[in-house]
Structure formats: C-alpha cells, structure tokens
C-alpha cells in the first residue's frame, strides 16, 4: 500500500483510493465501512470502505476475508494482497485522520466529538464512492454509538441506498471485513513509517500497543512530554491520558475558553465577588478611570517593568 500522499504531510486528513473497477459502475454494488485505530492515544485513525458488485459476494467470501482483529499482521497483509489482485471487481477507499486532526477537532472552541467525526468521515467516503460512479445499493456499517440512530442518519443522507448498521458487522458481512482489513493495513503502515516532524533525534519506537491503558505507552508518553509544547503530533492531545500527564507534568497553559472559577470571572466582568465583602480591608477603588481611548485598546500606564 502506497501511503506517500499521507506521509508527505501527516498533520492533515488524507484520502487514498484504488482504481474504480468498471463493473462497479454498471452493476449494483454493496459497500462496507469500517475503521481502525479508534481507541489508541497514538497515531492516526483510518476509515476504510470496500465495494464490489452484489453478484460477486460469493467470490469475496471465497477469499476468506475475516474480521481484521482475529488476524495476525502477516495474514492481513496477504489478504490485502488478495483484495488488490481482485481489483477487477473490488475497489476500496481510505480516509486517514491524522492524530493532529483528531486533537484539533476535539479540542477546538466548538467541540467536535469523535463520534461526529467518525460519522462524517464515513458519510464522506460513501459519498466519494457515489461521486466516482459506483452503483451503491447496499451499505453495511459497523456501529459507532447507538446503531439505530446511526442507521437512520445514514439512510436519510443516502436515500435509495439500503443501509444496515450492525454491531460486529465486520465479522458478519465479508464486505465490511474487507474494509476493516484495508483500514487496519493502512493504519499499521502509517504508524510504522511515522515521520516525526519534531526534532526528537533518535526516536524510541517502543511505545507498546498505543492504547491508553498500556503501561509501555504511558511510559513512552511521559518520556516525550515536553514541559511547554506537550507531545509530538503523533499523540492525540484530546485523550484524557495525554491531558492528565500534561496537567501534572507540563507548564500550565490557560486559554480564554477554559472553565474558570467564579472569582476570576467576576474580576473580569468587573463585578465584585461576594467574598470581597467579607474580607477586612477592601482596597480603595481607583478614583479615576482611564479614558476609553485607552481602555478600549487595553492600554495602561505601567509603574514597573
């Protein structure tokens, strides 16, 4: 699998796709959606779709694709090769969401949670298949969040397509298994060949599984925690594991959408906090206020440097 478009800039979201098989444009197709790397605190999350004509379902079954989690890495590679060899009737597309995209989405001012991000990525990929001329008639998705709501959302978005959202869809429908293999292979390659944009010298790659509960992963995070900048972009800052470490070990950074205690909010709104009425000596109010030319521009005289 050639990941060079993603490796050119691994801070953004990147789409990779196979050739669209000609039969997929003429025959009714089924399409499977699955993701890899949802839970880890490290590396990208990859969404994959796989599609083939409904008439070829049996042939796909014969390839013995199965849920990627039950396979070893070597087995996944062989199966991906098999899918590539069957490119006359099987097509795939991937969306690689870099850890940086996940961090910035979840931590921006208007929070964009992981479920919404996942849903939108899946929708984007299905739309991509439709736009490429694939005659999508059936869609199978492994669930993210409540299955019924997700199915309703997708059905509304794609009228005329029969959508099936099912937990464990990756072991029930071969087309979803195929999608999960594509996604997982891409994720493995992306993590293995990760090019750190930060200047970290000889990087220690022994970070374990990448899942937050792995002690090896935690130790690795702590090792690469910069007191000011936090972690390399390889890390999802929005994961609580990462945040907890930053809260305890890094320099505190305050943003203006941080939740603040009442005392400070009051101070900013020039209100007097209730507590101030109980303190002994209320400091005398500044008798003259700066002219609004200065206060509007946040300018003040200083009395020391």
């Amino acid at each position, binding site marked *: 699998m050639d990941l060079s478009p993603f490796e050119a800039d691994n801070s953004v979201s990147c789409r990779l796709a196979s050739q669209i098989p000609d039969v997929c444009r003429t025959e009714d197709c089924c399409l499977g959606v699955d993701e890899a790397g949802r839970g880890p605190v490290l590396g990208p999350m990859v969404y994959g779709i796989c599609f083939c004509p409904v008439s070829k379902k049996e042939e796909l079954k014969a390839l013995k694709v199965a849920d990627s989690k039950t396979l070893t890495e070597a087995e996944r590679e062989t199966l991906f090769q098999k899918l590539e060899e069957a490119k006359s009737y099987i097509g795939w597309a991937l969306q690689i969401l870099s850890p940086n995209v996940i961090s910035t989405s979840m931590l921006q001012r208007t929070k964009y949670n992981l479920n919404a991000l996942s849903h939108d990525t899946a929708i984007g990929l299905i739309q991509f298949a439709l736009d490429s001329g694939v005659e999508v008639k059936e869609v199978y998705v492994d669930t993210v969040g409540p299955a019924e709501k997700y199915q309703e959302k997708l059905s509304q978005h794609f009228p005329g397509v029969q959508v099936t959202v099912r937990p464990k869809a990756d072991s029930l429908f071969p087309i979803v298994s195929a999608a999960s293999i594509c996604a997982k292979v891409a994720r493995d390659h992306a993590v293995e060949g990760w090019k750190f944009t930060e200047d970290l010298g000889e990087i220690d790659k022994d970070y374990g599984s990448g899942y937050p509960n792995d002690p090896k992963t935690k130790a690795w995070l702590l090792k690469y925690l910069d007191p000011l900048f936090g972690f390399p972009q390889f890390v999802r800052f929005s994961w609580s594991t990462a945040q907890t470490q930053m809260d305890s070990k890094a320099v505190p950074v305050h943003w203006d959408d941080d939740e603040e205690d009442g005392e400070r909010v009051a101070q900013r709104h020039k209100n007097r906090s209730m507590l101030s009425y109980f303190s002994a000596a209320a400091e005398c109010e500044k*008798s003259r206020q700066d002219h609004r030319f200065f206060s509007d521009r946040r300018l*003040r005289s200083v*009395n020391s440097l």
Partner: protein
Amino acid sequence: MATKKKRTPHTQNDSWVVVAAAESVTNTQRHESDPAFVRLKNPSTDGASLYLLGSGDLQLYEVKAFEEDFHSWFVGQTVQRDGRLLFVTPMDPLYLILPYMIKTGKEGKFQPVDQVVKDEEFPACSRLLSCTRSLACLHHISEEKEVGSQKFHRYSQERTMSWLKKKVEKTAAALKKRNVCVGEGVKSSTYVRVKPASEDQQEDFLRYAHGLISDYISEDMSKALLTHLGLPEVKSPNETEPPSKKRKLSDKPVEAGEDYTKFNSSDFTRKPPKKMSAAQKTLAKVDKTGMKPMSSFFSPKAKAEKK
C-alpha cells in the same frame, strides 16, 4: 475531568517586548546619558508611572502597556509569559512639569524653575528640564520674569487653559483624521462608520479629545478645562440617582387628573359578556359544589381544618 489549573503569580521579567522609535532607545549623538526608564509622578493619578528619557534627556517618552488575559510571547527560542506589548511614545514634558508649577504657584511668587521642579519622592523629575521642549515652552503654563540672566516663573491658569485648549483642538483634529469613532453611542472601538463624520459631530470629537487629554492632567484641571471649552457637563444616566419610590407631594389620596372611566362606568355593565370557547362553556357547566378554588391550595391552611 481536567483538573483545575493553578495560576502561578506573575514574576518580574528580565525581558520585554517593546515598540519604540529607533531614536528613543539608541544614543546616536554620543550624549552623556543613555536612554533610561525613570519613575515619575503621573499628573493624572499622582502615583508613580514609568517614563523613558531619551539619550541626553532630550526627549520624554511615556510607556503604555497593552495587556490582555491569555497572551504570551514566543521570542526566538524562549517563551515569555506576560504577553505584554510596551509602547514607548513621545510625550510633552510640560504635562509632568505642570503639577509642580501649580503647587508652587499657590504661593504666588515668581521662582526659578529648578526650584519649582523638585521632588524628593521622584528625584528624576529635575531631568525633565533638560528636554528640548521644556524651558522653551514654559511660557505656555506660566508668566515669566527676567532679572539679569535669571528667569523666574509663576503658574498662570489662564495661559494653561488656552494651551490645553489648543491641545484638545489638535487632538480632535487628529482623531478626525484617523477616523476614530467618538460619541456616546459608540460602544466599540472597532466600530466603523460608513458615512464620513458630519459637522455636528465636532462636539463629540472635542469631548472625546478632552477626555483623552484629561488622562494627562489632574481631575480639577480637567473640570476647569471642560468649562473653558464651553462644553456642558453631561451626566451619564446611570450616575443620576433613581427617583425615590415613595414620592408624596400631599397627603391627599392620589387621583388621576382626568378620569374618563367615572362617566361611562354604566357602559361597562351593558357590555355583553365575553364569548367563551366550547371548552370553557363545558367547564362552566361542571358541578363545582364541594370543590376548592385553585388559590386555596397556595394559601396557609385554615385552622378550622386542623382537628
């Protein structure tokens, strides 16, 4: 989830981010003294404020800081946490000399200026007299008398007022040129007027300029200047006291001056009753005997019910 982050108190910095004219911070003329930050008496607050004297004490600069929450600087390979931007801008030294002149002016005597501008608390104030614009401009705020080779000065309110008036007019012109939005209705400094400022805005500009100049003079002086400019004092509505609620002019019962309802009260009775909706009609027909009115549930229980 996230623990509350503790703010550590700001410590003194050993570096600052400053916007300043090149000549204010370099000693190009090889003067005796290098540019230096000095603490002088702020004429508006009477407290200490920071100023900068250029090389050879030739030019006075005021130091203003842009400060807002949640700002920090990345300077080269370091981080400066205060996020403060200092502005060093030229300033007329007369503003700082004025309070000393007024103080000694109360004695009514003509005095040599080096005896006027003296302050134990701010010894650097005598350096103000070295500024190129100080001695030559003293006549704006004082009367002068020359005896032999020595000059004597006495504070003049009249001269000061006309000097300040010119300052206000110049400032108003500058504000107009820069399209600064003035006027009581303008609440935002980023507000942009579509139409150019009209003539009747002149007063707004003058008032705004007066406010701006008032940041450099004492409060009494500011009030006097307002009168001198012929601008009536405006009181903002929130400053005026709210009318007291219990305003009683006489003990007589309050009655409306003209009460028309008195005369046509009989018309009210003749009015047909309001039309009721079908639901209301059926409700009206319900047998209500033994039912409590809704309001009874909210009033304290009658003692009779307690047995």
